[in-house]
């Protein structure tokens, strides 16, 4: 396969970036998107030019490191997958592919396609935990959990924190990420004692970094784990209740 890549290059956070066009020969359709960038980087290294900085870790869709804006969509055109699960068979020979970093005030560009997504950690630090004595694992089924709640909590816990929801949102809003992180604790018995406190803290931290939701729905469409917009309704519900109880 022969592909033309239009890649955002930016040497440092302050530098002015721009697109650079590369032609990649010898790609094959079994390659994942990061492998395509590897192929290009090997050539750039051999030519003694600066390779393209991009993030990737597990390369199996569970770590959330590899998010890129590909042809104007977070994680590319394929639904429910991360950038590393996007294979070149999705494209045609001779295509031009535009690659940009995720853009948000909360995600400053470090270099080229690498952004600093640590505000997501700040949101988790502010309330994404339960305060419980730890120690040996408790007996299974010691605390009964309705099957429905367990399933919904698990759906929310599928969030890998890649930031695609924020990157895809026309408002740069952090609601879907925060909603998922809240829901997987707020739905379970263990999360109840700190539910109002957690909700207030995480929503307030979110608002310090990101925009606000107007229900466009782009976040769910971009989410590699297809986390439902329903969790945003739950966030708003919990936030309203927590505000009242304060």
């Amino acid at each position, binding site marked *: 396969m022969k592909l033309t890549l*239009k890649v*955002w290059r930016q040497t440092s956070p302050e530098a002015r970036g721009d*697109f650079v066009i590369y032609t990649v020969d010898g790609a094959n359709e079994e390659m994942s998107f990061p492998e395509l960038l590897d192929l290009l980087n090997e050539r750039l290294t051999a030519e003694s030019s600066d390779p393209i900085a991009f993030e990737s870790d597990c390369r199996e869709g569970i770590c959330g490191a590899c998010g890129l*804006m590909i*042809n*104007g*969509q977070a994680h590319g*055109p394929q639904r429910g997958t991360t950038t590393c699960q996007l294979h070149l068979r999705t494209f045609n020979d001779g295509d031009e592919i*535009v690659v*940009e970093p995720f*853009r*948000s*005030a*909360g995600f400053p560009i470090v270099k080229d396609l690498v952004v600093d997504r640590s505000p997501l950690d700040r949101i988790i630090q502010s309330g994404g935990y339960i305060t419980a004595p730890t120690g040996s694992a408790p007996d299974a089924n010691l605390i009964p959990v309705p099957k429905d709640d367990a399933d919904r909590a698990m759906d929310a816990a599928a969030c890998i924190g890649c930031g695609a929801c924020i990157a895809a949102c*026309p*408002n*740069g*809003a952090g609601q879907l990420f925060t909603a998922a992180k809240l829901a997987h604790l707020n739905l379970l018995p263990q999360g109840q004692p700190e539910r109002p406190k957690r909700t207030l803290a995480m929503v307030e931290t979110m*608002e310090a970094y*990101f*925009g*606000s*939701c*107007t*229900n*466009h*729905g*782009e976040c*769910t*469409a*971009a989410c590699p784990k297809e986390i439902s*917009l*329903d969790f*945003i*309704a*739950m*966030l*708003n*519900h*919990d*936030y*309203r209740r927590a505000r009242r109880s304060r």
Partner: protein
Amino acid sequence: MAVSGIVLLLFVFVHMLGNLKLYLGAGPLDAYSRWLRTAGEPALPRETLLWAVRIVLLAAVVVHVQAAYSLTRVNRRARPEAYRSPRDYVAASFASRTMRWTGIIVALFVVFHLLDLTWGTANPDFRAGDPYHNVVESFQRWPVAIAYIVANLALATHLYHGAGSLFQSIGLLFRRRRAFATAFAAVIAAGNISFPLAVLTGVVS
């Protein structure tokens, strides 16, 4: 945004329903208009209901505009550097991305609408207390009829997003919100747009 939106949504619906009396003729429409002014009399002073509704609506509009303004500012700050490549939206609808503009069109139209049919300064032959006559006089001018239709299409577009979005914002899980919003917008548009068409085609004269 959502709470003030619900107030405005209810008004838009009741306003459209009330105006359907246009099809019953001048008598019922004018009687309805009189009732809006005299409801509650003699226990309550004249126009109590009318002014209560006006105050609530004005407050809702102020809150709605203020919420839209602060939301826009927050969201502009959240992405100071726009994407350089064209975005490919998959879920955001035309309606959701143009709320600001459809909102401004509706707001400007409401000002004209009040000048035309409440204060009468923009009406060629305004008679206080005779809404049937005023409506017919107004819509016989085809530019006004067209402006009215365009504004109501903008309103329907605004409602198509807003009437569904509000459930999410108030934290109420309602799975058929899209269907509800589509039906609501369609009913409002059909009712409101039928009035100028009825006058232009001579069904109402």
